[in-house]
């Protein structure tokens, strides 16, 4: 009940902000269209890059939105007030996770639908799996955003976490340099970054008609990373503060 009304409250906040909704829905689609024209005449390259981006964009967008939204809860006093009510920490964590997860599902569905339908992207596996992995990646962004909001005092600081969290994952996920060709230490860093697994999972969907064992394992790793980030996030939500 409290969880349901918290999800509802977060979605209502989003609903009152049409500009943000437009950004969530339109921006990934526009960027993928840009990639389409960048690789015009090289459909295989486009397929590979666009597929990866379908996983990356939801992560970035949801990370940003969540870290700012949670930071606002902390700085405007609403979090302090919520902690004097029967709200539990899990109500808040899952509230944000589910509410923004739903927004991410809409985003991924539109971006994937547009890539396949209009831009002619092709994958051996199904669009449903692509959306599933994209949503998992978005929820990972939500979970890391909740966590990082604890380390920022202002929105100004919060946005600085984006390059810190996103850029290494993007650079080392295998898009620019295949992971097998990386130097050992780079590969080791890549191995502990969750986005490496979601990108690998998407690549699997790209080349195999049926879901593979590697894909499921990678998805499980991403889900595991979400759980770890949420547990760490819960630890930063303190009822009592100095």
């Amino acid at each position, binding site marked *: 009940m*409290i969880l349901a*009304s918290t999800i509802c*409250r977060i979605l209502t906040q989003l609903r*009152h902000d049409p500009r943000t909704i437009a950004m969530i829905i339109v921006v990934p689609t526009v960027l993928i269209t840009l990639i389409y024209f960048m690789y015009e005449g090289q459909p295989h390259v486009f397929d590979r890059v666009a597929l990866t981006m379908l996983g990356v964009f939801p992560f970035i967008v949801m990370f940003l939105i969540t870290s700012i939204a949670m930071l606002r809860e902390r700085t405007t*006093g*609403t979090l302090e007030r*919520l902690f*004097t*009510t029967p709200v539990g920490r899990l109500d808040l964590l899952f509230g944000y996770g589910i509410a923004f997860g739903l927004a991410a599902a809409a985003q991924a569905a539109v971006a994937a639908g547009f890539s396949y339908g209009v831009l002619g992207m092709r994958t051996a596996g199904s669009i449903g799996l692509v959306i599933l992995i994209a949503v998992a990646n978005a929820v990972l962004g939500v979970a890391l955003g909740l966590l990082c909001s604890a380390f920022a005092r202002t929105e100004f600081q919060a946005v600085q976490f984006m390059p810190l969290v996103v850029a290494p994952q993007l650079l080392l996920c295998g898009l620019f340099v295949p992971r097998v060709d990386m130097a050992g230490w780079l590969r080791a860093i890549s191995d502990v970054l969750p986005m490496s697994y979601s990108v690998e999972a998407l690549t699997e969907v790209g080349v195999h008609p049926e879901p593979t064992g590697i894909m499921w394992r990678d998805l499980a790793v991403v889900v595991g990373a979400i759980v770890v980030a949420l547990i760490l996030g819960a630890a930063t939500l303190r009822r*009592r503060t100095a």
Partner: protein
Amino acid sequence: MSIEVRDLVVRRGRRTVLDGFSCVIPQGGVTGLLGPSGSGKTTLMRAIVGVQVVASGTVTVLGHPAGSSPLRSRIGYLTQAPSVYADLTVAENARYFASLHRLGGRAADEAIEAVGLGAARRQLVSQLSGGQRSRASLACALVSCPEVLVLDEPTVGQDPVLRDELWDHFRRLAADGATVLVSSHVMDEANRCDRLLLIREGAVIADGAPAAVKRSAGTEDLDQAFLTLIRRREVAA
């Protein structure tokens, strides 16, 4: 006893805000917590609602340790800066806080009426004036009809007519058995309280009914009484 604070020590950063603070607030009635800015009013209130890290001492509310889960459905807290969602309407805010206490839209509507925001209920909080915004925040504290109501400067920036209405409302809640703790730095509001707790630099200067406080200082003016009591303490120290 509704609220019992014993030997409370709170440090914020390097500063010791409350150093061995003790007080007792009886059930029912309006208790005014008065003192200058920085005297420890907000810190004391945060300790009572259980969101303040305390170094030592105990705070007991309705027989339970402050902040413990049985209290969370029985206490209402208004923070000094309005803590409502600016991107929700007044009604949406009140409904959300009502839902946390498993209450419906009716409780929310009553709270909105009680703070005189009925006409603005469909407006986004971000579009309200400062005074309206703090009343929206107050509505969210009133929504659960709590047994203990902790209000940090609820009347700041309100017009005199509204302030009068809000005080009438607090008095009604107290008459119905609620314990209302209101902080203020406006001395003329002190006369509307059943009991006063004057604090300065984290220590109790006076504790009693307004008339008794004035009598002990030998003046009819509360501002003057406050000053006299502080001077008397300084001489004693």
